[in-house]
């Protein structure tokens, strides 16, 4: 029987010709990632276990993004612990305030992941890099620790669901709407333990940033990973960022899928995920006026330059509604500079938005835009769980950058057609 893209990458990293769903394997890692929240737990375990070195100083990366710039003394202590560890063990890819960004926007930008790689990260949205044709998945801190020390991790080979994309997106419809639609369709455990493989002609109409957004949210359907077929756009994206060699894996014709979904991108409408699960996806014909207090445009899902350009197009010449706070968070330093140079900041500031330095901040209720009891936010982030952005009785509605911008202007959840 043939193998899926994911199975081929796992087999190659386990030194095997063939693997099957359900098989337990030990695989070599190309990159091990941690952030300022998950790395301290891994470092404590590393020290307790008595390890004296890491497997490869170039294949470990730590990004200070969750509570950085340090939100309080405890967060500062956690960042310091990561900084000291990376200094002690000569970890090459340590990213601190000044050159850091939201980790899953930063690593592709730095060219740290190429097609065919096997990446683990102590952050659930590590699945983002599947957009580049890599196998990447979120793990916990203990796995990160063992990965840093040994360069290996055990995996159960996943089965897969195939999403065959056709057509192309309409104006003001984005990759975020597609992935919210898919999660709404299959549920937050619809891909539990499985790969989500995205193929078909429609893939080529999506930008690499679109694909990063969709792969990012594979975990919100319970997926082990999300992965896109590599095409010329992927290769161009990679070659602009690194000269590392890579291998492109294609699924075999007779690869087995537990389910196949055909999705016409042209049929997708602006979609909003209502509290308190990403699967509560609704289109605008399914709800009425919902007043909001805050808008957040940023995160590893939608904080890239194309997202900011799309939001700026909506904000141009408009004002944020009275009583609404709109926070824009470019995901990396490079994106920040680019947005500034392109004049997007002037548009945002004229509209009355605040612009933050890169951080995960409000996405996980950390800092830089926490909600009070009873408040509602529209956010381009990836989770709307109870208490995710602040008080347990606050609410988060997940949407695309253009829906978030339109909502900021009207003060209620709105689609772009209402303001342009």
């Amino acid at each position, binding site marked *: 029987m043939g193998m899926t893209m994911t199975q081929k990458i796992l087999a190659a990293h386990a030194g095997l010709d063939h693997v099957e769903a359900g098989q337990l394997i030990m695989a070599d890692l190309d990159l091990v990632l941690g952030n300022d*929240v*998950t790395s*301290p*737990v891994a470092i*404590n*375990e590393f020290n*307790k*276990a008595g390890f004296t070195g890491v497997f490869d100083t170039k294949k470990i990366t730590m990004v200070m993004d*969750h*509570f950085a710039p340090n*939100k*309080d003394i*405890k*967060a500062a202590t*956690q960042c310091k612990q990561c900084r000291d560890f990376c200094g002690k063990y000569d970890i090459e890819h340590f990213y601190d305030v000044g050159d850091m960004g939201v980790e899953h926007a930063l690593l592709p930008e730095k060219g740290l992941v190429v097609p065919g790689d096997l990446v683990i990260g*102590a*952050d*659930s949205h*590590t699945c983002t890099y599947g957009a580049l044709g890599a196998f990447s998945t*979120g*793990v*916990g*801190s*203990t*796995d990160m*620790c*063992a990965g840093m020390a040994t360069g290996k991790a055990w995996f159960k080979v996943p089965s897969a669901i195939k999403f065959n994309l056709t057509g192309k997106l309409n104006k003001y419809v984005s990759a975020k709407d597609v992935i919210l639609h898919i999660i709404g369709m299959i549920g*937050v*455990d619809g891909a*539990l*333990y499985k790969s989500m493989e995205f193929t078909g002609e429609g893939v080529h109409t999506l930008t690499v940033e679109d694909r990063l957004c969709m792969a990012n949210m594979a*975990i919100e359907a*319970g997926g*082990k990973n999300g992965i896109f077929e590599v095409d010329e756009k992927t290769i161009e994206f990679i070659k602009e960022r690194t000269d590392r060699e890579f291998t492109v894996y294609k699924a075999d014709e007779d690869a087995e899928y537990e389910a196949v979904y055909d999705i016409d991108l042209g049929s997708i409408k602006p979609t909003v995920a209502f509290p308190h*699960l990403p699967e509560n996806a609704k289109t605008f014909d399914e709800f009425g006026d919902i007043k909001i207090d805050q808008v957040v445009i940023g995160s590893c899902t939608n904080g890239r330059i194309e997202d900011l350009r799309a939001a700026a197009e909506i904000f141009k010449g408009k004002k944020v509604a009275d009583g609404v706070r709109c926070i824009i968070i470019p995901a990396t330093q490079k994106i920040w500079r680019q947005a500034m140079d392109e004049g997007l900041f002037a548009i945002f500031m004229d509209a009355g938005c605040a612009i933050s330095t890169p951080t995960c901040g409000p996405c*996980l*209720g*950390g800092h830089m835009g926490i909600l009070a009891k009873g408040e509602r936010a529209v956010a381009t982030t990836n*989770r709307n*769980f*109870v*208490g*995710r952005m602040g008080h*347990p009785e606050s609410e988060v509605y997940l949407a695309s950058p253009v829906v978030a911008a339109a909502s900021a202007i009207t003060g209620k959840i709105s689609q772009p057609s209402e303001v342009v």
Partner: protein
Amino acid sequence: MKACGKVHKYGDNVDTDVIIPARYLNTADPKELAAHCMEDIDTDFVKNVNKGDIIVAQANFGCGSSREHAPLAIKESGISCVIAKTFARIFYRNSINIGLPIIECPEAAEKIQAGDEVEIDFDTGVITNKTRNETYQGQPFPDFLINIINKNGLLNSLKG
């Protein structure tokens, strides 16, 4: 190897943000984390939990963030086992890796009620509900997972 205790019961899709909200992740100290365990869906959990107690939940327990702080907070609270219909995969892996026993059993997840006294035999996968005089068959752990749990986590087990 067995666990026995009183049940705390929850529903579907209990995510790691409610198990331990991110606002408390500025520490990795299990005791500090346990002080806020389940706070956003059950403010009484910390007050009511006793050593050996068991959590029973429905589908996709532990979904969302990969924070290992979630199983750490549950374990430090004194919980001896989590039974659910299904677990989110990162939570499953993290729990085993830190030595928190967890077991999938749809029948037990459905029939066990809050406050029941339940015993789990990890070698056989048999779950006994002492309050209702019922037994349910869960999936037993394979030997290598039993070894990790017995050694109190992956890293200790690697030391041999």
